[in-house]
């Protein structure tokens, strides 16, 4: 049995920032199913928010108000306040670690405008900010390699739970196929989001709900899963991201008639309205037959920015356009469509990243979560661009501090290694034993399709009910899938199957919570209930697993400084 004082699952921004905190005192194991540098945080392009005021005066209060308004007032404001207040410090710390930032002429960290933010608040490194921070943190981990052991290409299967205490994780080494138990005084999940359940998504193949579902399986409720953000500028058909920075730098959105249609939806902020509003505007244009060439596609036009600005500020976006669809944005507009991008919901945690067992704040001891897999909730119903990297860094650090406080001087808990291993080995064996009459690929595609069309940008009761039925059917078919690779060595097929199982579960949570929430708020839009309904729904959803199926309870929203008001841009 492997032992570490603390094991962190996930090596993106949240996981690595957490590891840096914990390794100051305790021995850390960091588990990643890819490599740290391959984590999806690296794909974040546009920036990381903080009210540094380097180009215009700014304040944490304005950052907080923008975040709460952007979240459609579902954010827990006590958490938001601490989060935005911490922002400048954590950015300076990243800079001190060596993170590469674009600079103002005076040598300060440069900041640009971003959707939903009233001030230019996005600190950036050209259009690869996530990449720059990810590598800076990875560099620090390499510097601290004596106290941090990184398990590259290891997969987390389940949590080891003893009553109300978490004592470790069951994992397997993807390279060798060996199953192992890692015993730890504390476990931190920083496992990211689950955009892969949708057909069009910006997410990496790795974004498959592994962490969220592992938590759910040990009785943790999932908070606000219905709130999924659709990013307005996914590459047509592929879904990969063209950063909001393209609009931050002044890009236009044009419909098939060449009109800047945002005029009709958010006249004051235009293209820089929050993502949920822009994505819906795009979908509405496309649904009304005003897509480019009548297709599900809108134009992102950067031509008026000129070659010099594009090359300086958006070079990667230009290259993506050239490589992936052969369009050079200096001379032609880019075809885009809304793409599933970010999960506002997730594992419920308090401000200190302690995982919650219920709405009353009962803790699962020794279990922490941070980053996209967690729901604090600082983003409420819709996250503003550049707030996610900040979330990962702020709460990665906080999780680290909480873990130290918890695990310092603690003993290891009891772990029945044989039993824990046997459970995962049986999971493998079950998959190998299936009768093989169904194609996992078909099941995956059908899940993605139904989630996109029936639980996507626009939702209604009829579609959601049909979606839930389809998912039930898919779960039955999933039990009869066909396996070709029964080997142990780097068997990527078996992991894709396990991930698909997780995604089918996650999809049901999303659709069920979406059906229950009969209002429209943030990223969740019901065409049959197009208005926000604070009387009935100004609360978080908490989805529990019960023997009879999913049960949804509520949790109050923490409102401190800003009372809910109509959200207009």
């Amino acid at each position, binding site marked *: 049995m492997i032992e570490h004082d603390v094991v962190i699952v996930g090596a993106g921004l949240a996981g690595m920032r957490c590891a840096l905190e914990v390794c100051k005192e305790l021995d850390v194991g960091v588990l990643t199913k890819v490599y740290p540098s391959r984590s999806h945080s*690296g794909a974040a392009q546009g920036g990381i928010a903080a009210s540094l005021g380097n180009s215009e005066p700014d304040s944490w209060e304005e950052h907080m108000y923008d975040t709460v308004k952007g979240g459609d007032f579902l954010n827990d404001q006590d958490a938001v306040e601490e989060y935005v207040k911490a922002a400048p410090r954590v950015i300076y710390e990243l800079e001190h670690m060596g993170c590469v930032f674009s600079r103002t002429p005076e*040598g300060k960290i440069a900041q640009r405008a971003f959707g939903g933010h009233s001030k230019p608040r996005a600190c950036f490194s050209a259009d690869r900010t996530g*990449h720059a921070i990810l590598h800076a943190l990875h560099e*620090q981990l390499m510097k601290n390699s004596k106290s941090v052991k990184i398990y590259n290409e290891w997969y987390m299967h389940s949590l080891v739970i003893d009553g109300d205490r978490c004592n470790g994780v069951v994992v397997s080494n993807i390279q060798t196929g060996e199953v192992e138990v890692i015993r730890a005084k504390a476990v931190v999940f920083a496992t990211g989001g689950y955009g892969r359940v949708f057909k069009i998504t910006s997410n990496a193949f790795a974004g498959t709900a592994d962490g969220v579902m592992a938590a759910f399986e040990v009785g943790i409720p999932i908070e606000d899963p219905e709130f999924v953000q659709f990013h307005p500028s996914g590459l047509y*058909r592929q879904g990969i991201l063209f950063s909001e920075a393209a609009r931050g730098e002044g890009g236009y959105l044009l419909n098939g008639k060449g009109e800047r249609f945002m005029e009709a939806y958010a006249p004051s902020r235009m293209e820089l309205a929050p993502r949920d509003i822009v994505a819906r505007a795009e979908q509405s244009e496309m649904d009304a037959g005003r897509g480019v060439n009548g297709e599900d596609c809108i134009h992102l036009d950067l031509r008026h920015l000129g070659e010099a600005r594009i090359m300086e500020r958006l070079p990667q976006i230009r290259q993506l356009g050239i*490589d992936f669809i052969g369009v050079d944005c200096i001379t032609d507009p880019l075809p885009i469509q809304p793409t599933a991008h970010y999960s506002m919901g997730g594992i419920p945690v308090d401000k200190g990243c302690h995982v919650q067992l219920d709405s009353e704040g009962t803790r699962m001891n020794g279990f922490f979560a941070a980053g996209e897999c967690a729901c604090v909730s600082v983003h409420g119903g819709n996250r503003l661009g550049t707030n996610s990297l900040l979330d990962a860094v702020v709460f990665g650090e906080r999780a680290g501090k909480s873990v130290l406080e918890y695990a310092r001087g603690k003993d290891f808990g009891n772990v029945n290694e044989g039993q824990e291993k046997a459970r995962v080995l049986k999971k493998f064996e079950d998959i190998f034993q299936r009768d093989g009459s169904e194609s996992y690929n078909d099941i995956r595609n059908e899940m993605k399709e139904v989630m996109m069309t029936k639980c996507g940008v626009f939702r209604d009761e009829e579609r959601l009910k049909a979606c839930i039925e389809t998912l039930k059917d898919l779960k039955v078919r999933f039990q009869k899938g066909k396996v070709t*690779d029964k080997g142990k060595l780097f*068997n990527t097929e078996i992991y894709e199957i396990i991930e698909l199982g997780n995604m089918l579960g996650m999809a049901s949570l999303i659709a069920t919570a979406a059906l229950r929430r009969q209002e429209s708020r943030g990223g969740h839009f019901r065409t049959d209930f197009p208005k926000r309904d604070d009387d009935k729904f100004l609360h978080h959803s908490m989805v529990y697993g019960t023997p009879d199926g999913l049960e949804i309870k509520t949790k109050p929203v923490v409102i401190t400084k800003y009372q809910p008001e109509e959200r207009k841009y």
Partner: protein
Amino acid sequence: MATFRIKRFNPEKQPEPYFEEFQLDIPHGATLLDCMNEIKWKLDGSLSYRMSCRSAICGSCAVKANGHALLACQRQGEHLLQDDDTITLEPLGNMKPVKDLVVDFTPFWDKVNKIKPYLEPKEEPPEKERQQSPEQFRLIDDSSTCIMCGACYSDCNTLEVDDNFLGPAALAKAQRFVSDSRDSKTMQRVQDLSEPGGIWDCTHCAECVERCPKPARPFDRIKEIMTVALEKGVHNNNGARHALSFTNSVKRSGLLNENRIAPESVGIFNIPGLLGLIPIGLRMLLKGKIPPIFHKSIEEVDDVKRIFKELNQ
């Protein structure tokens, strides 16, 4: 219909790799990675390769296609079709295969670790950010785009014959710190990087520049480190002596004096090194291939000298 010739390897079943062919209609607009997924998901689920982001930023899906390393997600399948309608896929080179297209990255990361890949700051950090001008940022902008995909490492010509070479990715990463205005260890870094296995073992083949999917272009970064090393006076090695001897020769005559460069590179007090030059010297002497003893200058050499002077060289 395209034929994908894929190098398969599964030591659990068979010790030697072999090629297997798959037929696939490449969907319009499909990337190479999309094609590989079509094969895996529809034809043979046991095919193993790495992938994650699909947008050329995570660096997982580097493979060799038609003999050269690239990111599978970054290229259109159709563009890789050869005249005979085939695409040949192999694992990255210079690393040991694990299964199919998956290779062992351990030596790659070991070498990245060797160059001390983290900032060693000059002083205690200020309250806010350290100042860095846009010009200073530009010096590390390109190297900081590296995604550690290993494409350069795969096709590096020096690595094919010398495992000891740090390789292009680690050296590009090193430039990221050598040229960072916030770093305090520039001298130490260029000294370490001038050791055998470092910058001077780069053979200038530029394969790394060609394979790099980002603007990192390792060979260009290696040359930047060389310039810093020479500026900092780290001259006690054959590479630096070679560059200095070469440049001085051009300064004197406008041309390279081949008779001087060899002994000056190994060092004129390096007796074993000089002895090592004797066989080649003798061979060339016997064939009349020794350059003229009296090295002639180009016409208008004074203008060349003037340029050297103007640039303080």
